[in-house]
């Protein structure tokens, strides 16, 4: 493994009793998500007629923009494979209900197919790009979930609130917006399928929180609030999902221009002007929901491109 490492109070170094292994203690809403996921499979290898997809229908500029966009999506989806599985280890360590522990297995599998379809699309349109430009790397490299999930001093609820109920909720609503703008049938279909999966992922987070919040102390709820604020300020407002929120540099400008090209062609992207109100509305909905359902009050957020939200 890499020589660089972080030292912290890891759950892996703590005793974790397996027994009694209660599998009957259920969260029925999450159980339904597990069953729905198991019966809603789709396969990136076959969902598109890859050989029949006519590249002549796309300009060179569009193909380049597509390969960049889907490479970027692949990097983002890969994070859910290389980091989020730590949450499942944590669920087992914390002995959360059986449905939560079982559901998260297929959630990770769904993320792998999102990475796979993104990679296949990037390859199809000119070749997957294996790394972002250096100056853009800080915006897309990691959201630190692996460390947070394994850290015994960080309540798992704060990680779920930040990752799922905030970050994933924002991207879900952005995808809904982009899907409506997309006219190319194959790309629209991919968005619809990913959306279906992501809707379950977000629902999981809210169901889990509804189940756990009554057991949290005031101090733990404050940790939840802090984690959400950190995720929004340091990850989302730094351009992890939306390129126009990233620090201005040549790479982010190129990404923004590429997205504009795709938006004009109905090829699965949007523009800053169109995404901005969607993003602001998402943040407001998250704030309202956390306030009304959790009793957690988020601060106002600020970004030069959006002003105060």
């Amino acid at each position, binding site marked *: *493994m*890499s*020589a*660089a*490492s*972080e*030292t*912290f109070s*890891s759950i*892996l*170094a703590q005793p*974790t*009793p*397996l*027994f*009694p*292994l*209660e*599998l*009957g203690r259920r969260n029925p809403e999450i*159980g339904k998500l*597990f*069953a729905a996921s*198991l*019966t809603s*499979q789709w*396969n990136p*290898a076959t969902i598109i007629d890859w050989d029949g997809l006519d590249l002549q229908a796309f300009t060179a500029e569009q193909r380049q923009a597509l390969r960049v966009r889907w490479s970027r999506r*692949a*990097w983002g989806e*890969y994070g859910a*494979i*290389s*980091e989020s*599985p*730590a949450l*499942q*280890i944590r669920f*087992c*360590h914390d002995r959360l209900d*059986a449905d939560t*522990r*079982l559901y998260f*297995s297929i959630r*990770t*599998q769904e*993320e*792998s*197919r999102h*990475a*796979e379809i993104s990679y296949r699309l990037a390859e199809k349109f000119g070749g*997957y790009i*294996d*790394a*972002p430009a250096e100056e853009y790397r800080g915006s897309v*490299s*990691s959201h630190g979930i*692996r*460390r947070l999930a*394994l850290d015994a001093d960080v309540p798992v609820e704060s990680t779920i609130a930040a990752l799922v109920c905030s970050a994933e909720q924002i991207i879900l609503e952005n995808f809904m917006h982009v899907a409506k703008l997309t006219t190319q049938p194959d790309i629209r279909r991919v968005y619809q399928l990913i959306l279906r999966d992501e809707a379950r992922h977000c629902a999981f987070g809210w169901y889990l929180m509804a189940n756990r919040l009554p057991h949290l102390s005031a101090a733990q709820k404050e940790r939840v609030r802090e984690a959400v604020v950190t995720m929004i300020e340091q990850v989302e407002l730094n351009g992890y999902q939306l390129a126009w929120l990233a620090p201005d540099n040549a790479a982010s400008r190129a990404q923004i221009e590429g997205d504009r090209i795709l938006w004009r062609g109905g090829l699965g992207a949007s523009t800053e002007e169109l995404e901005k109100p969607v993003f602001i509305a998402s943040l407001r909905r998250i704030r309202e929901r956390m306030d009304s359902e959790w009793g957690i009050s988020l601060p106002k957020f600020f970004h030069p491109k959006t002003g105060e939200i």
Partner: protein
Amino acid sequence: MTHEALQRVPRETRFPLNLAVSSAAIDRLYEESKLDIWAPATEVDWGSGDFSALTKEQFEAARRVWSRRTWLEYTGIAATPALLLRFCLERGREVEAKFYLTVRNTEEAELVDAFHRYSELLGGYLARPENPAWEAVINRRCEADALDPELPLDGYVAAHCAVEDGLELALFRAYLANAREPLARTLLGRAVADKTRHAAFGWNYLESRAGSLSAGARGEVVAALVDWLHKVAFAGYHLPSLATTIDSAAEQGAQQAAAAAGLGAATAPEEEQIFRDYLVTARAHLQALGIALPALSHPRLGAL
């Protein structure tokens, strides 16, 4: 492993992120697994079980056997995500292995759900062993081993994914062969399909790596295998009768009664023969890969 090692999580160097497939064999397993997802809750006719001829003793025996099976399967729910993380933390590890592990974990969750439901039908799932001495044997904490930077990944894969999953497959084939009860047959048929892929993954991966392993790395693989055999297999994890420090009479009695009733089990002598035969096959397979497993001796079975 050391306590200090487990307090560290290595930082990932994500880029360049290679997502091109390099092992066609493992990619095929991934594709097959994606097509074989099933929902125990809705796709199994749970009313199709035929328990009319069972005695109270047979019910009791079978629920013990199937509850234990559930506990063993459950250990993968945390161990597989840990292994996936480890693959992602090590630079240059193959993407198809990572993708495959995500679907393997879904299969483990399906089997936990299915085995638990079947145990319930047999009179009620048991949440812990009757003899508490078994708890430490079963709670191996593989997730900690998988993420222990002091344990080489190739050794982990050789022990747990190749040899151990291969043994599980051999045992489950025997359970399926024994199963006359229709629902047990259905579930074990599913389990054998999944476990065939799980074992194939381990052996395929080891084959893909074996040629590039240094003498030192081969030694580490051998050490991991010997460690697993002594601490896990010989401790009675898969075959209770192999335990020498725990009285397994109750487990052996349950196996015998469940097998006699055709509820998908094997007797202790049958399991031990499977174990012996499997070790011969595994040893030859390892030898062909340049990995020499030393002679081993079990306190009761003798030389293996």
